[in-house]
């Protein structure tokens, strides 16, 4: 059966997505993080394209292309350039040690699957079983943002969250309307550029990209 075959590929890609999310949690180097982010984008684009092919939803092709262009090519390239210009590719010790983070991550994945079960039973799409994975990758990306103290990993965490959301939209309802997706893509792009400018400003002010220097900005 062709359908179940493609479905298996989609499931495989979803599993890859989750694996990459875990890999990002454990990655200490920023450059490695960017590479993983690019891979995650690639897996996302591939799964979107396969869903588009198998269900005949043509607008999903555009989404896939958009994903490749933005998240596999443009943003990683921009991040590598930033890393080079800012000279920040050193090992970063996360706030919580990595095994603990992984354990929390596993708890989150179980939570997400438990949560997605009733929803995916309601959804009428072929890809509904991957909804749990999508939510798990959102939560894992959020966890990564929490455990990192440098600015660039946080932005990458934010983008990974967007990946998870995108995947959730694809698996629950074959994606959002194209207009919305284009809008989100543009927002993400602009957001990244603005944050890139902020990185320079932050470093100029604090001589570091470590966000703990911003603690003094609070009241009192």
């Amino acid at each position, binding site marked *: 059966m062709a359908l179940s075959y493609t479905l298996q590929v989609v499931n495989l890609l979803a599993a890859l997505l989750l694996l990459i999310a875990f890999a990002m949690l454990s990655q200490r180097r920023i450059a490695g993080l960017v590479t993983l982010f690019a891979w995650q984008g690639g897996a996302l684009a591939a799964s979107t394209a396969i869903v588009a092919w198998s269900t005949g939803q043509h607008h999903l092709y555009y989404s896939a292309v958009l994903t490749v262009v933005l998240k596999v090519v443009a943003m990683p390239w921009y991040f590598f350039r930033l890393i080079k210009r800012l000279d920040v590719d050193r090992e970063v010790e996360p*706030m919580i040690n990595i095994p603990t983070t992984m354990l929390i991550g596993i708890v989150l994945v179980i*939570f997400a699957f438990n*949560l997605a079960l*009733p*929803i995916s039973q309601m959804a009428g799409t072929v890809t509904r079983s991957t909804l749990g994975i999508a939510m798990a990758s959102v*939560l894992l990306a*959020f*966890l990564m*943002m*929490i*455990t990192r*103290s440098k600015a660039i990993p*946080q932005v990458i965490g934010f983008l990974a969250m967007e990946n998870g959301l995108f995947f959730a939209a694809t698996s629950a309802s074959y994606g959002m309307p194209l207009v919305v997706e284009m809008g989100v893509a543009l927002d993400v792009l602009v957001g990244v550029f603005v944050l890139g400018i902020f990185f320079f400003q932050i470093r100029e002010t604090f001589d570091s990209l470590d*966000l*703990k220097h*911003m*603690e*003094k*900005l*609070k*009241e*009192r």
Partner: protein
Amino acid sequence: MPEPIPLQWAWGIVLYWLLLAGASLLLQRRGHLVTSLVMPLGALGALAIAAVGVAGLVLPGGHFVLPIGLPDLPFHLRLDALSGFFLVLLGGAAFGVTVYAVGYFRTMAAGPLALLSLWYHLFLAGMVLVLLADDAYAFMVAWELMALSSYFLVTTDHKISDIRRAGFLYLLIAHVGAVSLLLCFGVLQGGHGAYTFDYMRSAELTPFWASVAFLLALFGFGAKAGLVPMHVWLPEAHPAAPSPVSALMSGVMLKTAIYGLLRVTFDLLNVQIAWWGTLALALGLLTALYGVIFAAVQSDMKRLLAWSSIENIGIILAGFGLTVIFFADGKGALAALTMTALLYHALNHAFFKGLLFVGTGSVLHSTGVRHMGALGGLIRRMPWTAWLTLVGALAIAGMPPLNGFVSEWLLLQAFLLTPGLAHNYLNMVIPVAAAAIAMAAALAAYVMVKFFGVVFLGQPRAENLKHAHDAGWPERLGMLWLAAACVLLGLFPAMVIDALAPVTRLLISQTLVNDGNWLFLAPVSAERASYAPLVFLLVVLAVLLVTFLAVRRVYHGRIRRADPWDCGYAEQDARMQDSAEGFGQPIRQVFDVFMRVEREMPDPFDRKPHYRGDSRDKIWLLLYQPIADLATWLSAQAGRLQHGRIQWYLVYSFATLIFLLVFTR
């Protein structure tokens, strides 16, 4: 439907004031144009609004719908006898005050002056809209316009931190009151979901919900009127504002709260319950006594007048409570008497308190001093201000033949006529209430003796008073207008009562029967009591004239000029006069349970001894300080959430996300 002409005029004047407000914003660099053009034009608007009010009293009112506001929620306006009466009050007082303001603000810098003129005209427009509004939405918008514009007027001198603090307190209490009013309207609509006053009139509320609505209205309007214990903003905000603004706030703005209370209780609610009246009467009496006691111990002249405003609001509210009691008891004639008395007193207070505030404004303007301990003897330097202020002081002290006497006399008549109420305990309590009103009136006279005596009589207490100059012509004209109103309202009470008849007919379908004629005022029955101010005045004048002539004739040519007997003191100087603190001392001794006194005693060997005694309100300490402390503590606790670490903020949103995911699936 015939076109409601007076109402259109009223709306036109509101637009005209808004236009003037906008125009003054354009005149940021031409201050002289603001005082010589914009403000006189604004005063004409006030006169016109008073005329519209008269038309509203006489002609059948109209209503129309304005196509502004939210979609499906247009503004409804209506002019009836009640709003007409308050428009007369507003226009009459605002005309005098605005004419005065033309002179008063002439020396102000152009930029602040333009802003002041902007807020001033918005304030006037807001008050008119409050009186005209015919749905809850328009009412609240107008109410907020009034509150916000007066806030900016209070904080005109915003560089002084005490004034900013006073303004904040005012804004806070105004908004607590506004929230209560919002809830009140929510109850009043009775489940219709429609917020026009027409629907509210037809809503059938159960006694429980009607009581809830009344209590919310009493709290909300009480906060604006300065009812104890929500009065704390009043003695702070009134002295902080420029004098014409204080005059408007005290004379007119407080009355909009009375208007709202009357509107809600007698017009919008379908039942009136006797215990509401008892509550209002008790609170009113408390407010009156509390206000006058604190007025007696003040040594800042504007603060003294602010406390006196609290007292007058208390008297008006006591009259309101009595009206509700009588009306619920089915005694329509007596209800008409008390309602006439309270409306009359509201009108009187607008004029004499306006007059007194602008009078202190002139003193402040020419001496720069508000503290009475540094004033004195100004009657020789500022005769116009002094004599006109004297008219206001006599009126507020309840001296016949001026206007203050008439309304207080009417109210006391109502108290004396009460026996025969259905509730026995009320019958027993009301004489005590009458005594309390009488005591408040007597103390008010005491306060005015202190105010006028210390500021204008005696010898100047400071050197710079020698250079005090009298008020200019616009100020004099404004004060003359207000003083003339005080005199005329006192001399022709029968006519005023006739003019008030449509209001009482509208609200309680009864009018006060004047058993006398235009000369004699005799409420209810001519056998019981009557009052003829013109005759009284003529007799007083005749006696004065006869005495004067007799003295001239008998002693003519036998005058010997000599130093007065100085009681053995070889040297008399200004410091030997009774001071403001000294004058208030007996009251402070008697009532010191209510206040916390701060004293600075002079050193016995001090060459220039200085005494300061400040009497503070205990309600502030007992009621407001704990609330303020609690708010500070809670915000400090909430402030601990702010770590400054972005990770923690992320954890907050993460926890919220998880929480929502768990509990909303």
